[in-house]
């Protein structure tokens, strides 16, 4: 293939323009993340809080509007907000799974860049990309997921996988310059699950590229010591899922009504200037619209670090 100087010039121009645009939009997003930077604590949202909003890419515009409305500059974006669905009438689960894999391996040109621009334009930065890896993923597919969400600006992939799947993920985050976030639940009867301190330490020991995404609701329900865990392992914690529950597998509650030490945790992050992102995530019930409920819970957190 031969290339004229004019062609080369065009290529450089386009490349520089695209890079300039991405850099500019990235700067805009960074500034926007500061929208929810309160007294040194970076807040964000796990959009699961919008219980009434199905997590599908067709609703991404509404999601972004709500995030802005709630004053959030950072988000943990579930893959379903980005990827197409192939499940439908007449499509078997395995066929849909195969089509999704194919899509991940060969996404439309510029697809992730376009999604990134939507978020950047609204001033929302993707902190992490939530995806539950399992045995159905091929190695190429795992790489493709990291490649895609890196374009979105994500710093890591988070999921609710157990220890067995985590072992398989060890080689991947390092080569993409990202981390894998381990998300704990509260099933103490499952030895493969991340639910108590011992299981989480086991997971973190698998790779220096593994970080905890400590869920305060689940850890409290599993009778864990959130404050103690944060004090001891803060350098391996990328973020918190901030929510409240009662101990002993208790129910979810509005912030401040359960046993999760939300105020103490947020103040520890603030006072120690730890780069740990606090992502609000709750599932307590409310009769109010979810956007209002997020406002109220966010207000609780803001007052905690005021």
């Amino acid at each position: 293939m031969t290339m004229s100087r004019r062609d080369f010039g065009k290529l450089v121009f386009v490349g520089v323009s695209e890079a300039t645009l991405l850099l500019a939009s990235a700067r805009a997003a960074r500034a926007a993340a500061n929208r929810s930077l309160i007294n040194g604590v970076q807040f964000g949202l796990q959009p699961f809080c919008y219980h009434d909003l199905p997590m599908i890419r067709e609703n991404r515009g509404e999601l972004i509007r709500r995030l802005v409305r709630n004053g959030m500059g950072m988000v943990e974006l579930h893959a379903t907000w980005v990827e197409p669905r192939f499940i439908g009438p007449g499509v078997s689960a395995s066929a849909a799974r195969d089509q999704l894999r194919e899509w991940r391996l060969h996404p439309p040109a510029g697809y992730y860049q376009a999604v990134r621009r939507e978020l950047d334009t609204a001033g929302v930065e993707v902190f992490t990309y939530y995806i539950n890896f399992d045995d159905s993923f091929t190695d190429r597919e795992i790489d493709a997921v990291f490649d895609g969400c890196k374009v979105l600006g994500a710093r890591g992939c988070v999921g609710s996988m157990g220890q067995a799947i985590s072992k398989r993920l060890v080689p991947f985050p390092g080569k993409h310059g990202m981390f894998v976030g381990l998300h704990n639940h509260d099933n103490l009867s499952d030895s493969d699950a991340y639910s108590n301190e011992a299981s989480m330490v086991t997971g973190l020991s698998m790779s220096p590229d593994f970080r905890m995404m400590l869920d305060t609701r689940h850890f409290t329900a599993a009778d864990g010591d959130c404050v103690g865990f944060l004090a001891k392992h803060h350098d391996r914690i990328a973020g918190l899922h901030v929510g409240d529950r009662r101990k002993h597998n208790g129910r979810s509650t509005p912030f401040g009504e359960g046993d999760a030490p939300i105020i103490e945790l947020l103040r520890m992050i603030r006072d120690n200037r730890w780069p740990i992102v606090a992502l609000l995530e709750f599932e307590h019930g409310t009769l109010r619209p979810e956007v209002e409920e997020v406002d109220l819970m966010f207000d609780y957190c803001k007052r905690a670090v005021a």
Partner: protein
Amino acid sequence: MTRVLTSICFIAFAAAVAAQSTTAVHRSYDTAFLGPVLPDPVLQHAKETFVLFGCAYCHGLDLVSRGEATDLMHSALVGRDENGSRIGPLLRMGIPQTAKLSPMPQFSDLSDHQINDLVRWIHYARQQGRYRELTTGPVKTGDAAAGKSYFDRACSSCHKVDGDLSGIDRKYDAAALRAAMLEPKQERHHTIVENIGADDVANVVSYLRRGRASASNRPTVTTVSTSFANVAKTGDPNGDGLARWAPFTSLAPQVFEPGKGSDTHRLEGGWVRLDTTGSGSFGGLTSSFARAVLTPAGAARVKPQRDPDDVDPDNKPHKAGEPYIVTQGRCGVGGPGVIEPNSAAFFIVPSRDEVLLVREGPGGRHIYTDGRDHPPLSRIVPSGAGHSTATWEGDDLLVDTIGLAEGAVTAGGWRTPETHVAERYHVAEDGMHLRITFTWTDPKIYARPHSYSFDFERVPADGYAFENWCDSGDPLQRQSVVPPEQLK
């Protein structure tokens, strides 16, 4: 001083407005998620409790579960629960030992009252959901023997097929019977609707309709689908050489049993329209009806119509004995005479699959009660009878008709093939009087439903029908009408 007072008033007003604004924020109610407020405050409170404690986000407000949450709509444990006997302890304990990612939390801190509210909503939503689920779609053909077995086990303590349910197979078509069985408003059926399976429903319906003959050997009533005259008008019915129509009781008893049991078909028999108001002029009667309120588009459609059979539009008087053409000789029936019985007697002949309306004139009207739907309008040739389906509500027959030929409706109304006319046939307690209430609806034509009633008297017991003969190709039938000499 005045200025100070004005300022104080202004500040007080502003404070009141601010307080109201603050209150409004805290009163926000997520109607989109919670749905409309229920008329029963206890149930509404139960629903809100179900949401407030987070149950709805996993199990779904209407029990359509999300993610890995248990499907409460079909859970066997919920089906066996009686007033919280099983759900209550489970809520208190939670389910810590599970293969799921997140165990079911425990709700030990809730009061008994709150637990009861959660249980109340779960059962209510389950009954509503399963009722919808089980009554959607056509009724499958079931196994009557299996249906009897289920009936004996679950229903026979309250019901007897030859007692309170006698004749129910004629009263309801399969779909209506299914709906009546599962109706959640009947409290004693709550357990049934929460637990019965779709196959059991089909089996029981088949059992209750077991006497229904197959289509191939079912006695038909076509012998009465010709025409009738009532004896009050015709005198001796046997003089025409026609055989008398077989009395009802001589037909197969599974077709209909007049006068027996619960008088399911009190409508059966002949009826004559009463018109005392009009003293013989139907216009006199209908002039007392409320006029139809039409939409602008509906009013624009109305146009003067004349009888399509009238071939002598100048309406000039004719001398006695002067022949003239008074009809085009059509053998069909047009106009509202099919839907609204005129001065001729008409007979109602109920059977399992249809109610037949026959009159002193050509044609008959078939009103289908076998649960079928109307065919698409594109498949209906508009006519004076249209296409009618009906259900029974007690002894009342509720008819719905579409597919009528475009034309005028009594009391200033209008109809097109899309227009629905609902009819309620109601027999008075004395069994001798019938009222048919017509209600016309069509959003394109009527600003509100257009309704009126006609009353009828029962034809004497020995009334019967003459055959109506019509040959549209016969010139005599069309033209040789010689009006009799008028009374002087």
